[in-house]
């Protein structure tokens, strides 16, 4: 076995109230794809941030190519050959693609930026990733997937010896993932060590050579991917038997309850559509990224204005001009965009949790502190939010736990219709199962749920019926009976019509 390019031993890191990493060992061989596995809050992100110098370590040491290193910032780590592409694209959307690739290290001539050279080299670099786009255009004109590729292009151009990809695939479609994997294999051949984090187990088994599993900030072990069956992997990640992961395989019987929401010819950023949602019914929205799923959710919540059509909620026609009006009718909306449309990062878990409730009551009727504490304790326990410290700033929580807090924010209001836009994206298996179970429980309790997810299996597992979208148009509405499979859904999406 080749000598490790990167070796971390006994890494420890503590945050106020949390031991994020405790004696973790980790090594990375040149020319391998190494998956870092663990639930949300297991310490994956912290380990990466420690490695890239974003955080300093409290214990342990890091060796790069045999030499001991201690980075004091991401720039230093980058110079040493460790490049990172984060989950959320960390680029400047208002700058051009070329500027983004070369920001901070622009090619210069006579002390001035050589724009022509910069564009040429950027285009060349992107061609290596099979991407031919106009590099002079602002990054924001391209899709999230292409932005991700640009971030990777930037990372590998900085003579990287170690490339860290933190959830690079969470917003890519299948074709784009394949493209990314081609690029990764090519980089691997060049001897670059790739650290790969993803919640998609299939992807891990397709690309990763070895993996390291973390749980609650501790090392579980290092494994060769081919020798570890998926079931065992999941068991090691969540540290318990798979009872809770039992697939909810029974098809939910169709609901015959009263109609709760009736949208007719509702349109705006999507073509006019009609949709009814019954009480206690889970309606899935299936479709590719950008097919109009989120737009439908926003229309029903009054976050966007409808250009046409009407909405009836509980038989009463409602003009959904603002989210407040939708809320007063019992509609809740959990956005897919946690960072920009959900979290208030400077506030605590408790404050984020009661925010919608407080907004509903207005400024003059505060939720009594005792009631706040009760509610917060109840939902932290019910949703298994970790760490269970309500006074912690929410930005210090891991993504999955942030998502649970945002869910709880709406559950407190006991809505009649809960709109969940990609509630399980970027979340580990355990939390995902918990959220799925919760959706089933809520709908059994009579709450209607509009469930949006890119994972068709998940949509199928939970929904009573599925509306299929393509190119911002509802192309089919299918009851979830025995004939409906992911293949049928995919075909419907591809052909743009129900069979």
């Amino acid at each position, binding site marked *: 076995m080749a000598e490790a390019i990167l070796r971390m031993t006994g890494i420890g890191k503590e945050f106020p109230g949390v031991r994020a990493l405790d004696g973790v060992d980790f090594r990375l061989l040149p020319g391998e794809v190494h998956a870092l596995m663990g639930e949300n809050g297991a310490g994956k992100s912290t380990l990466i941030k420690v490695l890239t110098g*974003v*955080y*300093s*370590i*409290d214990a342990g040491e890091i060796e790069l190519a045999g030499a001991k290193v*201690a980075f*004091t*910032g991401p720039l230093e780590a980058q110079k040493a050959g460790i490049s990172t592409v984060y989950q959320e694209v960390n680029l400047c959307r208002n700058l051009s693609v070329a500027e983004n690739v070369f920001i901070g290290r622009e090619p210069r001539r006579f002390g001035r930026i050589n724009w022509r050279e910069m564009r040429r080299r950027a285009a060349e670099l992107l061609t290596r990733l099979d991407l031919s786009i106009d590099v002079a255009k602002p990054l924001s004109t391209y899709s999230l997937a292409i932005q991700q590729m640009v971030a990777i292009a930037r990372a590998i151009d900085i003579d990287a010896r170690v490339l860290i990809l933190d959830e690079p695939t969470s917003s890519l479609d299948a074709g784009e993932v394949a493209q990314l994997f081609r690029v990764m294999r090519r980089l691997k051949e060049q001897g670059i060590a790739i650290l790969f984090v993803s919640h998609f187990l299939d992807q891990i088994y397709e690309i990763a050579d070895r993996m390291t599993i973390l749980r609650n900030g501790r090392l579980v072990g290092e494994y060769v991917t081919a020798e570890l069956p998926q079931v065992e992997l999941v068991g090691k990640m969540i540290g318990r038997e798979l009872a809770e992961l039992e697939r909810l395989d029974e098809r939910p019987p169709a609901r015959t309850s009263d109609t709760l929401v009736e949208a007719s010819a509702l349109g705006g950023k999507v073509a006019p559509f009609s949709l009814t949602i019954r009480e206690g019914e889970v309606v899935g929205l299936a479709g590719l990224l950008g097919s109009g799923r989120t737009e439908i959710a926003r229309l029903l*919540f009054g*976050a966007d204005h409808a250009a046409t059509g009407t909405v009836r909620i509980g038989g009463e026609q409602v003009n959904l001009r603002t*989210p*407040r009006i939708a*809320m007063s009718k019992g509609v809740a*909306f959990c*956005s897919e965009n946690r960072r*920009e*449309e*959900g*979290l*208030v*990062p*400077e*506030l605590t878990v408790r*404050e984020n949790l009661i*925010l*919608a409730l*407080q*907004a*509903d*009551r*207005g*400024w*003059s*009727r*505060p*939720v009594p502190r005792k009631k706040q504490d009760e509610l917060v304790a109840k939902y932290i326990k019910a949703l298994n939010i970790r760490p269970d410290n309500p006074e912690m700033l929410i*930005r*210090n929580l891991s993504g999955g736990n942030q998502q649970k807090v945002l869910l709880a*924010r709406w559950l407190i209001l006991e809505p009649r219709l809960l709109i969940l836009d990609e509630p399980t994206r970027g979340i580990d298996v355990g939390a995902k199962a918990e959220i799925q179970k919760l959706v089933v429980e809520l709908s059994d309790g009579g709450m209607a749920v509009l469930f949006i997810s890119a994972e068709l299996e998940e949509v199928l597992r939970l929904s009573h019926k599925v509306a299929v979208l393509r190119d911002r148009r509802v192309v089919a509405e299918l009851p979830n009976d025995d004939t409906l499979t992911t293949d049928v859904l995919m075909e419907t999406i591809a052909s743009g019509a129900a069979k």
Partner: protein
Amino acid sequence: MKRLAWPLGMLAALLLVNLIFTDHFFQIEIKDGHLYGSLIDIFRFGAPLILVALGMTLVIATSGIDLSVGSVVAISGAMACLQISSLTSQDSIGGVLGAVGIALGLAIALGVGNGVLVSVIGIQPIIATLILMVAGRGLAQLITDGQIITINSDPYKLIGGGYWLTLPFGIIIVAAVLALTAFITRRLALGLLIESVGGNAEASRLSGIRSRGILIVVYAFCALCAGIAGLMISSNVSSADGNNAGLWIELDAILAVVIGGTSLAGGRFSLSGTVLGALIIQTLTTTIYSIGVPPETTLLFKALVVTIVCLLQSPAFRAKVFRQRRRPAPPAVAADEKVTVRT
């Protein structure tokens, strides 16, 4: 409390300088049933600044800024003095109360205007309030007809220069406004909603917070505070000067807010921090006079001290200095500040 450690330390340092250089600085005596002394003076002359800074704190917490407070100070003083000067008896309490009411009403209206520009029309706060900052001086001059209006009204004099229960009346007003603000923001839920809007406006909207209404209320409150400060300033000198009343007070107020630990990016705010910040600025001004800095260099001196204060408060700066001093030692673990943590 920990957040207030730095401002508290700085105030203590400034007071220490006075203890060394100024005789009888800490002496407080009662003359004619009134409290006298340098410390009392700091509170008394600092009262308008504290008020303006309180309003500014809430505006900044919404990630806005209000540059027009100086102009509102001038307008409110001018309006009150104009009304009083037209009274048949300037000592009539009813007349003075009416004048005060009109002046404060005007201030609130101007603040609502600011709030509408920012929240409904969507102009950036710095530009929206810049309009009133410039136009407001003109408005104040229009009210005073370009003259300095002098009045002679005992009830009005009370606001800025009078005493009640041995205390300067201004201090009592400040205490009342502070208590009211603290109650509404911290006992009631307005503070949480303001911090939420300042921390993430879109998330707040999607959580059902009426951010427009909140912004308008906050700008109106800020203008009201400035209006009261304007009454104090004009009452103290029994005249209204549209040109110079409240000149540059917006900058001192913003500074007080920042020294008090409220971030200009919005979000978390600290009322007690702001009060401390305003007291630091006022103490500095007093100190400059009392230790005899030559008048032609006072502005420069003040700027220097303020720069040092701000640098000392910046965690990034402290970390840098700290790290450089520790360079010889193993540089690995300097975990005292999470300066580089941006998540």
